[in-house]
């Protein structure tokens, strides 16, 4: 009788095993974003783009050399950006690493009113009306956030809204592990 019963428990057992594998898979799935970006470990694309708050000025990658920075691609049309905005403000308050925004395919007036209403987490915001810059960065959907080191190398990429988890587990350790002189 016992052997008979085991036969019917087998599917449940196999399924339980599979569920464990899937659970591990889900926990690791953000890693896939790292593998997916061809920019990782390579130099960030050099840029010189109009500044959203003052179009006569430009935001240039050359000025950022020697510092860690987060490169955050956003737009007022993007729901995920709205979702991560509070997190970005927290990052700004933490003061560990500045955020450079790329306002992607957006209306300047809309973007400015967004920042004045919701608060501005960015050190500076570059505008990308044509979407050309985002192509250089290999962006396929907003929001996306890149972590660039003082040598101008992209060391981490996060797809989707920035979460406190990503911040404490992925970004903060990388920035604080670097030798003090380099940041």
């Amino acid at each position, binding site marked *: 009788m016992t052997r008979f019963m085991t036969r*019917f428990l087998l*599917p449940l057992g196999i*399924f339980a095993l599979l569920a464990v594998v*899937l659970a591990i898979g*889900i926990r690791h799935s953000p890693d*896939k974003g790292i593998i997916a970006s061809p920019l990782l470990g390579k130099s960030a694309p050099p840029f010189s783009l109009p500044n959203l708050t003052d179009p006569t000025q430009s935001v240039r990658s050359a000025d950022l050399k020697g510092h860690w920075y987060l490169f955050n691609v956003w737009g007022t049309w993007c*729901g995920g950006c709205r979702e991560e905005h509070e997190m970005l403000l927290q990052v700004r308050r933490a003061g560990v690493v500045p955020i450079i925004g790329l306002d992607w395919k957006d209306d300047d007036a809309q973007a400015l009113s967004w920042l004045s209403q919701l608060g501005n987490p960015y050190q500076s915001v570059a505008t990308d009306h044509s979407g050309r810059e*985002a192509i250089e960065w290999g962006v396929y959907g907003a929001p996306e956030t890149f972590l660039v080191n003082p040598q101008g190398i992209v060391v981490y990429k996060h797809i*989707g809204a920035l979460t406190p988890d990503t911040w404490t587990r992925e970004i903060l350790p990388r920035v604080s592990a670097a030798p003090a002189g380099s940041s």
Partner: protein
Amino acid sequence: MLPELGHFALILALLLAGLQAFFGIAGPGLARDRWSQAVTTAVAGQAVMVATAVACLIACFVSEDFSVAYVAENSNSALPLFYRVTALWGAHEGSLLLWILLLAAWTVAVVLGSGRLPTRFAARVLGVLGLVSFGFLLFTLATSNPFLRLDPPAPDGRDLNPILQDPGLAVHPPILYTGYVGFAVAFAFACAAMLEGRLDQNWARWTRPWTTAAWSFLTCGIALGSFWAYYELGWGGFWFWDPVENASFMPWLVGTALVHSLAVTDKRGLFKSWTLLLAILAFSLSLLGTFLVRSGVLVSVHSFAADPTRGIFILVFLVLMIGGALTLYAWRAPLLRSTAGFELGARESFLLFNNVLLVIAAATVFAGTLAPLISDSLKLGTLSVGPPYFNPTFMLSMLPLLALLSVGIHANWKRGRLQDSQRTLLLTFVAAAVLGCGLTFGIYSHGRLLTPIGATLGIWILLSSLVDPVDRWRRGMVVPRAVLGMTVAHMGLALAVIALTTVQSFTIERDVSLAPGGMAKVGDYEFRFDGVRPVEGPNYDAVAGTLVVTRHGAPVAVLTPQKRHYFVQRQVTSETAIRWHRGNNVLLALGEDLGAGRWSVRIQIRPLVSLIWIAAFIMAVGGALAASDRRYRTARALVTSPGETSAGQTI
């Protein structure tokens, strides 16, 4: 206003689904017939609420309400009206809503068709369906609400993913989902039988038409998806063993096994626990298919950015749903005994082989699809599994299956006296072998080892499946729709085998670089490139190349493949140009601009490739025919007659 109305309707639908599940499962369990009767009211209410929510979201798309985040992310003011409507299921949230809508539709269909079911059993079926719907609605509301607002609203939308801007999108996902969701009905019937602790031949007769109908939709959906990928993605293949394709193929394989196993349970009262397991498995794989694509667990061409909260919710839902059903199975199935026996050469044996081989095929596809995930989670490195794995392993179980089909179709129920049909068997096989080898070497004069084998098997199935209906017809008997449907579906399979063999053996692919006026000769066809010209679409710019196609100098067609550049999504898509000529499928795709007017052009000539989709469609038609047999509609008389019920098994 409309998005809030839709959101509110979804919340009400969730509550009604909860009631439906509660009354449906608790009512019969506690023998409260009033509760059982209340279930249909909950079903109707839920269906109305879900339909309202969907209508609201469609209205938001049509009226270009870019204050709704989902609309802003998947539509644009320049997007044509037709795609503004189909954009509903262009991404995760809307796809879920579509799933829920289809589940509501299937549930209503079950209510309308359940007049012949005993009240308590019907309540249990609807209760399980309510539970599934509840899970999906909760998931949507908690993690993927399509009605979220943007403040301030977006000035314009991000546009629908250009790959999805195609008439194929309008029909492919809804039909595929109809198939997926249809297996929920078989699942609910299985769970209801286990809750009831009773499974007789009537049960199989009730379940069969629903399962076969779902299977037909799934067959159609997969074929449309394959066709869509062929001409829209421009990669020039009809099947890539991509995780998303596999996700729809696995429930199809198990569903096919289920359709056959149900036949045995219906006719002979055997394979009971096996049928239950297959019903659970088919729906589990449908759920897994829905979610694998959406959760970002597996990254593939079609999937979306990873979202861990969604993934965890999905996993919990799967564990509760499938784990619950399998627990019920472990508890109840041992009590279902089949007393009848059968001989080795009987039809039952062949259907058992069919089931085993189909499940093995599904398991190999499953292993190949999940292998990258498993190796990744065990830190064995990133692994990629492709056609070199899938093609041979899949063939390993398919070839014997096809051969056994031709033999098994002649076998009788219960008794294994195959020698009676020895002559027919031999005759059909010899005819098929002669035709198969003759055609292969007559038309193409070359081929691979598998070419004559595939052709022979295909023709053998074609001939064998005709034997029984032709015999009945000659003896002046009526061919019932169930038999007719089976014959049509098997012939569809045979045609698919023939088409696949031909395509795999005789496809010619070439990438050429052509300057204006340049010529290329591929196979029997010549191609002259007449340069490119700009084309303007509503929301894209394109260049169209002009190629004059001739065959041995005789004109065939002028084809204009395009390369489109969508403004808003900054995405480039390739619009292939396809011409069907003398059984050959000539496909042209425009590649890269090589400068100085030169372009790279991909030329592919695939013989009989269209037959693959036509064959799949024939299979689906066969399923529809079988599902509509009167036999399943007259089952009511059998239920009410006390003689029949006592023949059923009670625990």
